[in-house]
């Protein structure tokens, strides 16, 4: 007789209490000398200060970075130890390319929903200024061979293979897909051609991203979402005075002859960090914090971009309809759309795909097109084109800003969508 019984855990709603980030800075500017850990500590300590979490033991802190040094193996835990949170708060790292921040939030939220923890923080940081430069591969293999050798003679013999040239050819981080050797911009340029996305449409979206971000700053929307850092109070990529003329003057960045993607309508390399505080409703009530919104669910997808059958950044196009079907929702049920703008073209490709009957039927398996997204509801407080895109920090930025926008509105529902390297897409629904 087996007396084992399985009692499924009751699920409960996951409240978004608030978020914090440092202003995002273009690569090699104000945060040029900061490490991922420095940036993450700054964002996390700001959150601890705002929500008075000093000395508290939380359920967990989950965070990651995309461009990482090997010494950053325990980035989240090491960062936590530099804050005034209780050192008894566990932490772990994760990495899902540009989806890292949102995936971290989904993991923490799932534990809260299942009752394993009551409160946790999710986040991410990235710097491309303090990028890891590796040893030359041949030198590294030679040193490892010497390390493996037991006898001194063998060690010396191995080390004799070191050549001076090895010291001048370091291993540099690549801004390209490992399996294709093409940069993300080149992949997106290919998508823009496939979907016939015009340059003007890309520049218009870019302009709107800057203008809406600026307007949000002007009305104080970010006052309780951002902690100034190193004298920076706003994202330094923001160009409030940019115009369609200025954007039109930029030359194509990835395909100089026929390209439409420019330094303006693509996100620049950016340094920054963000964190989000998630908790059960009971925890929120006990600590007297209002609930901004609830993190309802998430969905991830992946596409085969390697054989060219799908565009690298098209996975959200698949994740969103799957999630909507599961939840019984349609675009009409949403008041906000937070779509990560890696490139203006990538956003426009995704929107066009959801309007395309053939694509929706053949690729997404839908009877009818998913529909059109009302631009007035999309990225209402600016997007990555305006503020920049520190890879792992984007999800936390979007989640906190969307929750606050829903709270300000007095309720509503929002969709988050993030495309990521490796043909990945991470999406989520936030509501109240």
């Amino acid at each position, binding site marked *: 007789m087996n007396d084992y019984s399985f009692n499924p855990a009751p699920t409960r709603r996951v409240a978004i209490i608030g978020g914090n980030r440092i202003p995002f800075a273009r690569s090699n500017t104000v945060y040029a000398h900061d490490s991922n850990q420095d940036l993450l500590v700054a964002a996390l300590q700001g959150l601890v200060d705002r929500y008075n979490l000093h000395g508290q033991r939380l359920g967990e802190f989950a965070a990651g970075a995309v461009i990482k040094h090997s010494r950053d193996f325990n980035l989240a835990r090491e960062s936590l130890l530099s804050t005034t949170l209780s050192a008894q708060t566990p932490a772990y790292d994760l990495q899902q390319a540009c989806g890292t921040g949102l995936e971290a939030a989904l993991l923490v939220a799932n534990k809260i929903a299942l009752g394993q923890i009551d409160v946790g923080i999710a986040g991410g940081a990235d710097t491309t200024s303090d990028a890891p430069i590796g040893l030359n591969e041949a030198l590294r293999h030679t040193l490892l061979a010497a390390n493996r050798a037991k006898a001194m003679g063998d060690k010396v013999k191995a080390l004799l293979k070191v050549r001076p040239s090895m010291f001048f050819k370091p291993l540099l981080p690549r801004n390209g897909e490992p399996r294709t*050797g*093409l940069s993300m911009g080149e992949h997106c340029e*290919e998508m823009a051609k496939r979907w016939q996305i015009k340059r003007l449409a890309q520049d218009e979206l870019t302009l709107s991203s800057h203008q809406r971000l600026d307007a949000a700053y002007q009305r104080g929307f970010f006052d309780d979402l951002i902690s100034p850092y190193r004298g920076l109070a706003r994202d330094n990529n923001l160009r409030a005075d940019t115009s369609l003329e200025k954007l039109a003057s930029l030359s194509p960045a990835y395909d100089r002859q026929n390209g439409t993607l420019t330094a303006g309508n693509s996100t620049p390399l950016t340094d920054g960090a963000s964190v989000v505080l998630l908790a059960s409703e009971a925890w929120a009530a006990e600590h007297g914090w209002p609930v901004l919104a609830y993190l309802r669910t998430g969905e991830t997808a992946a596409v085969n971009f390697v054989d*060219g059958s799908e565009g690298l950044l098209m996975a959200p196009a698949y994740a969103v309809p799957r999630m909507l079907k599961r939840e019984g929702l349609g675009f009409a049920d949403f008041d906000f759309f937070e779509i990560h703008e890696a490139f203006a073209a990538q956003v426009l490709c995704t929107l066009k795909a959801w309007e395309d009957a053939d694509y929706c039927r053949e690729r997404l398996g839908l009877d009818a097109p998913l529909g059109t997204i009302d631009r007035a509801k999309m990225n209402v407080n600016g997007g990555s084109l305006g503020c920049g895109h520190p890879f792992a920090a984007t999800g936390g930025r979007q989640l906190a800003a969307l929750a606050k926008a829903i709270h300000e509105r007095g309720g509503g529902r929002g969709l988050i969508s993030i495309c990521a390297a490796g043909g990945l897409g991470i999406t989520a629904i936030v509501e109240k």
Partner: protein
Amino acid sequence: MDYVTQIIDPPPSQPQLLLDGLRALRKPKLDGAPELPKARLVRSAVELSATGIAAYGRACGFRHEQGVPLAYPQVLAFPSHLMLLTRPSFPYPASGMVHLANRIRQHQRLHAGQALRLEVYCERWVAHPKGQALSIATRAYGADTLLWESDSLYLRRDVKNPVGEPWADVLPLQEEGLLRTQRWVLPADVGRRFAKVSGDFNPIHTSLIGAKLFGFRRAIAHGMWTLGRALAAEQPPGGLDQAQAHCDFKLPIFLPGQVALWRRPVSGPRREFEVRNFAGDKPHMRGLFIWNERLK
């Protein structure tokens, strides 16, 4: 045709091959039609060694999970190819033979550690618009079963009135929908690295000066490397049971350099691809790769 089977044991050393190559730089002028060499060079047990496969894989970009690379046995047969081309009875200088095309068929799965009987012989003359072409056959047997075979077409330029059947076997490719799917950044030492695993130290692939001596402005990538690199990009994980690859070589790839892999979107276990320059207006190699389908 009656071939004379000649067992090659041990295989020729690297210096010996180089020496033969030097000796074969000049050949007496040919009167009348060329005669097909009658030798069938046989190596009775060549091991598909795991370390050899790994080294070839590193040079061409294969990953371990892809199993034995489709074009790898040809590398093992390379010394025999060179022995045929450098024989005194071969009518043309070996150094002037241009690799035009290659056809490979694999009938059964190959495994590391397996021993292959490799047979190499000149199969037939082919009349090419640019000169006299020759098809060299490579056959790999396990026990008495043909496991793998390859036909390599080499061209001697500027031969008037070439003999043999006319060359017509050109791979078709539809230009429409051709997508650039990969960028290959090729360092200057690509040729030297492939020479170490293939044993083909032809100076046009391994050195700038050597390439200039033979009339190229820089060293050029080895055709079988280009094919290997493309198959590494196309071959699915899990190894191949049956497969075939065809390729036609076009313009040389100068080293160092940058080229791109272009592909026509097709579904199923079939790939039509072309290696071109990054802009896409200069072709280097056209290829067709079909796997795990019963071969006709």
